[in-house]
């Protein structure tokens, strides 16, 4: 297994501002993902974070709203831009460990409230 950390663990933000969430892993990983979980909902994949290149976004998510960086194998950031109350969610990063087939392990999550 691996230790996955996310910062911040929670935040309260004003509408129109941006928040950057960090995800750090202590092991070698092959893939990293970012998810959103809106209140009472299941997990929705935002994008696959690609090392050294642009992320691959799912339908309904765009780079201008959710810019993602992955400068190396074990670190990624997700920015939620120009926030509105509808962005209030839990944001989760997940990783697939080297040799781990498709099993994804999740970070502790960031609970975001936008006022």
């Amino acid at each position: 297994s691996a230790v996955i950390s996310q910062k911040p663990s929670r935040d309260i933000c004003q509408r129109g501002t941006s928040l950057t969430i960090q995800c750090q892993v202590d092991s070698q990983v092959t893939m990293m993902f970012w998810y959103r979980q809106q209140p009472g909902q299941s997990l929705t994949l935002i994008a696959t974070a690609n090392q050294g290149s642009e992320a691959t976004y799912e339908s309904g998510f765009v780079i201008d709203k959710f810019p993602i960086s992955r400068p190396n194998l074990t670190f990624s950031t997700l920015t939620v831009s120009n926030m509105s109350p509808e962005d209030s969610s839990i944001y989760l990063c997940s990783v697939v460990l080297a040799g781990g087939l498709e099993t994804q392990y999740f970070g502790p999550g960031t609970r975001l409230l936008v006022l």
Partner: protein
Amino acid sequence: EDKVVQSPLSLVVHEGDTVTLNCSYEVTNFRSLLWYKQEKKAPTFLFMLTSSGIEKKSGRLSSILDKKELFSILNITATQTGDSAIYLCALGGGTSYGKLTFGQGTILTVHP
């Protein structure tokens, strides 16, 4: 489009009961089915199933996959209050390796 449907959506039981959670799916190019437990924020991995008819077991939890009928079940015996959580089923398949499609989850509440 890949699809994962879990049932029931919620379940309330008493300690000591046995529960069965269901996950049915539709997918092209099935690779794996995974179960997760989500208590607060982060889902924690329980099982990964790739072969039909082989039971995975960990303590009081067990899971089995039926690739012919396209479903999986998660059993929890002798439930405890600590089993109260959302149980998520996720599907690995299609053309994008590594990506998972999640079901809506089953909310399990275990009363003392």
